[in-house]
């Protein structure tokens, strides 16, 4: 037999030869010193290689029981998809509802004193841009039923008799229209942005909307022109409803805030009594007033007491009040 090649020697050392092959190799090795020497070399090589591979061995860890590796049967796709589809539907519905709740349908609803607390702080009142003329039908009056904010600070129980108010309004309207554009105290009442009430307001609070007063009637009640904060559009002048000879001037501070100026001759003003009535008879108004201030800031201008309410800080209210020119 020729010398044993290295492949055969490795197979011999690995114990992978058949008995017949092994016997033949043994026979050769017995008579061949060179092959025995090589056999030793290959044995050392195998041991060395095995040792080296041992250096690259991960540390032993306890293996989990085989049963722990068994998987549940794969679920049919619709078993997985159906809950996902439901989840997606619910999320879509919530998202849609959220979006719809956030959406202003057409014009934004006018925020009254009952509106959410405004974030606006201490900013000086800026004149509203006057580039957009109001509809012609509204010129000459301070406002109309459909375009006035609901005077939610007043209450039904303290309201003027509607018939009387309507009569005053209808009498006043003709006069006001004749004097269309005539100077009234408001800097530009005709330029006040006209808004439609939100549908919710129209439905629920239309009966609370008071007839507008024209400037002549207002003058009669106050004995002078209604006092306004200069530079802010006047949205309406109405009777306040909380005292017979008190008017309320609603002005826009900005697109979302209004200011209410309660004006009455000082001799007729019984502020504390009025406030008591307000708090006793209308919790909503009371809450709104309380949210602004426990005692709304007031200023005596001439013989007219002006009380200001708006959803801004007390400091801002004082500043706004100070802007009123006698």
């Amino acid at each position: 037999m020729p010398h044993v090649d290295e492949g055969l020697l490795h197979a011999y050392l690995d114990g992978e030869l058949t008995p017949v092959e092994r016997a033949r190799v043994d026979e050769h090795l017995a008579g061949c010193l060179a092959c025995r020497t090589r056999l030793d070399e290959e044995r050392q090589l195998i041991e060395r290689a095995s040792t080296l591979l041992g250096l690259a061995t991960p540390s032993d860890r306890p293996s989990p029981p085989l049963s722990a590796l068994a998987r549940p049967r794969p679920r049919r796709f619709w078993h997985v998809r159906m809950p996902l589809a439901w989840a997606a539907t619910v999320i879509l519905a919530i998202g849609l509802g959220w979006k719809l709740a956030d959406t202003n349908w057409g014009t934004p609803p006018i925020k009254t004193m009952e509106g959410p607390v405004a974030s606006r702080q201490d900013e000086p009142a800026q004149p509203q841009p006057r580039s957009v003329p109001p509809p012609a039908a509204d010129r000459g009056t301070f406002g109309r039923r459909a375009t006035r904010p609901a005077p939610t600070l007043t209450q039904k129980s303290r309201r003027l008799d509607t018939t009387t108010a309507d009569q005053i309004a209808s009498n006043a309207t003709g006069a006001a229209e004749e004097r269309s554009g005539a100077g009234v105290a408001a800097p530009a009442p005709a330029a006040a942005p006209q808004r439609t009430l939100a549908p919710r307001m129209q439905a629920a609070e239309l009966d609370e909307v008071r007839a507008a007063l024209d400037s002549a009637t207002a003058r009669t009640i106050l004995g002078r022109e209604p006092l306004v904060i200069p530079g802010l559009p006047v949205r309406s002048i109405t009777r306040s409803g909380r005292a017979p000879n008190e008017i309320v001037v609603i002005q826009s501070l900005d697109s979302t805030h209004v200011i209410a100026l309660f004006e009455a001759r000082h001799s007729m003003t019984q502020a504390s009594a009025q406030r008591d009535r307000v708090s006793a008879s209308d919790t909503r108004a009371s809450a709104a007033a309380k949210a602004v201030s426990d005692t709304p800031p007031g200023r005596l201008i001439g013989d007219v007491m002006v009380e200001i309410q708006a959803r801004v800080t007390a400091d801002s209210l004082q500043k706004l009040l100070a802007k009123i020119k006698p």
Partner: protein
Amino acid sequence: MPDDLAEIYRTTYRALVRFLYRKVWDPDRAEDLAQECFARALVHKPDNARGWLFVVAANLARDEARKAATERRHLTLLKGEADAQAPAADEVAEAAADRDKVRAALDRLTPRDREALLLWDAGMNYDEIASQTGLAKGAIGTTLARARRRLVAAYEGSEGEHAARG
């Protein structure tokens, strides 16, 4: 659960982990992949479970290597920083250095030689290695002889280079 698979699991699991570790070089990943192999075996119930397991393991490791090659490009810088920040203890560092040298030496082998060597070290016999690698059984001894010689030479060579540099 077939009894023979339970027995194969008992005798082969560690070998399969070792085999996988020398391909993915991540002990946790090697364990995961080995368990994945057995989980699949429980589903497929192959006839020659042992050989089948190593075939699946080799395929999983190959897929893993492809993914790792992609990720390695992103991780090279991070790894360098992490190594610099957290020097290992001496023994651990030494073991890691040895492992890295073996890994480098294995990388010097041809894929076929390396596969035969790793399969042998995982406990497979020549028949199984032949079946797995597509080599003739009679060629396995020669292949292993070459693989072992090159592995040792590559390792010693790297040590020689290291000594020469040091």
